[in-house]
């Protein structure tokens, strides 16, 4: 049995919160820079150029890429052979977030109660998704999520007879309704199958997948490609001001579901699609 001390977890989560907010993952950065070359709309081209410049300024002048430095979403794949020493794991994760948001000059955007709405002033708690897996490693993904785009996300409980066409319609409708609000160009994370809550978590997880990596399922891979093309024909464009670059990528994750159901969750993320992964 391998031991990991929570001090190590705290330190890593702190660093990952900071890294995610100052430097975009290379796959997302390349897509933004590449889109600027391909965009025909004048205003769209100009906005994409500003987004590229924004990434340079963030890195060089140590200013977060976006002022909404997000609520910290943490995925933990915990090898079942690991023993955790120190404080309890949830406290450790939140301590990492606390230190990261303080030392990284990141915005504290969390309120303790959704109706009373007092700011917790340290950006905790985060939202933690655990998965127990075989082995003796711990994989941590930190994905700070902004809410301009989160607010434009949707869940559909479709009928099996709606099929692939229904899924496509749901995704396109969500993107159309999001329009300029979600800060396009967006990244679209989709979860299909499972149950009401499972498809939502899958959609969030889909956002953490590398944009150059397609689904391993052939029919889903084709769906990802077709939907991306159709989204980019909507004409929403960068900033919602017209153009062909409405989405940088569509990632779909699936799970078995019930004979009576076809749940679909669409989690929209802006172009600041932050995700940092480390294996301890």
């Amino acid at each position, binding site marked *: 049995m391998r031991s990991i001390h929570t001090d190590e977890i705290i330190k890593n989560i702190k660093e990952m919160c900071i890294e995610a907010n100052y430097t975009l993952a290379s796959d997302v950065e390349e897509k933004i820079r590449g889109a600027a070359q391909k965009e025909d709309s004048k*205003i769209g081209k100009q*906005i994409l150029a*500003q*987004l590229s*410049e*924004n*990434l340079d*300024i*963030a890195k060089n*002048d*140590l*200013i*977060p*890429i*976006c*002022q*909404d*430095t997000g609520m910290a979403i943490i995925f933990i794949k915990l090898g079942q052979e690991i023993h955790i020493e120190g404080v309890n794991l949830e406290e450790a994760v939140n301590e990492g977030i606390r230190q990261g948001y303080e030392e990284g*000059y*990141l*915005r*504290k*955007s969390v309120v303790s109660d959704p109706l009373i*709405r007092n*700011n917790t*002033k340290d950006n905790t708690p985060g939202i933690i998704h655990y998965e127990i897996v075989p082995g003796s490693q711990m994989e941590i993904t930190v994905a700070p999520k902004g809410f*301009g785009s989160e*607010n434009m996300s949707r869940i559909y409980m479709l009928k099996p007879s709606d099929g692939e066409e229904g899924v496509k319609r749901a995704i396109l409708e969500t993107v159309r309704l999001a*329009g*300029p*609000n979600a*800060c396009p160009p967006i990244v679209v994370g989709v979860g299909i199958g499972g149950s009401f809550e499972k498809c939502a978590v899958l959609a969030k997880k889909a956002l953490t997948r590398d944009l150059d990596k397609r689904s391993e399922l052939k029919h889903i891979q084709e769906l990802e490609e077709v939907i991306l093309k159709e989204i980019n024909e*909507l*004409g*929403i*464009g960068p*900033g*919602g*001001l*017209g153009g062909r670059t409405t989405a940088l990528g569509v990632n779909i994750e699936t799970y078995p579901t019930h004979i009576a159901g076809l749940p679909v969750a669409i989690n929209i993320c*802006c*172009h*600041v699609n932050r995700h940092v992964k480390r294996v301890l």
Partner: protein
Amino acid sequence: MDRYINAPLKEEIVKELKAGDYVYITGVIYSARDAAHKRMYEALEQGKEIPFDINNNIIYYLGPTPEREGQVIGSAGPTTSSRMDKYTPSLLDLGLKGMIGKGKRSQDVINSVIKNKAVYFAAVGGAGALLSKKIKSSKVIAYDDLGTEAIRELYVEDFPVIVVIDSKGNNLYEIVMQSS
């Protein structure tokens, strides 16, 4: 069309602005977002005053990140405007002349923009590092307890925005979707 204008706004200038114009703003503007709007709205409902003279001024829907030593302000891009829709017509009636944010507005807000000859600008969402460079001074003037959501007086120079809804009610987001 590129326009260089000053803040606070003048009605004759606002009336010349057209949906789709690129505008560079220089002067004093005020930041306020969800919590500050709620508080101002409640103050007005109780017959109290809001903490700054809103007449002819611009509100920027912003909650910045904390600044490092030597920086004027942290990352400072726009937040989604529609969350302020409920509170906006009252502020426009009070003399608010311009708003900077991102995303769609309600029909009530659009009607109020027309009625009050105001203007709604969008700044580029997710370009907070770049936009922070256009802010030359920043000072919290009210609701300090709200942290990032406090009201700030900002001095901006050539702050880049695009006219989305002009004083006649033309809406760039609609125009763009109709032409695609």
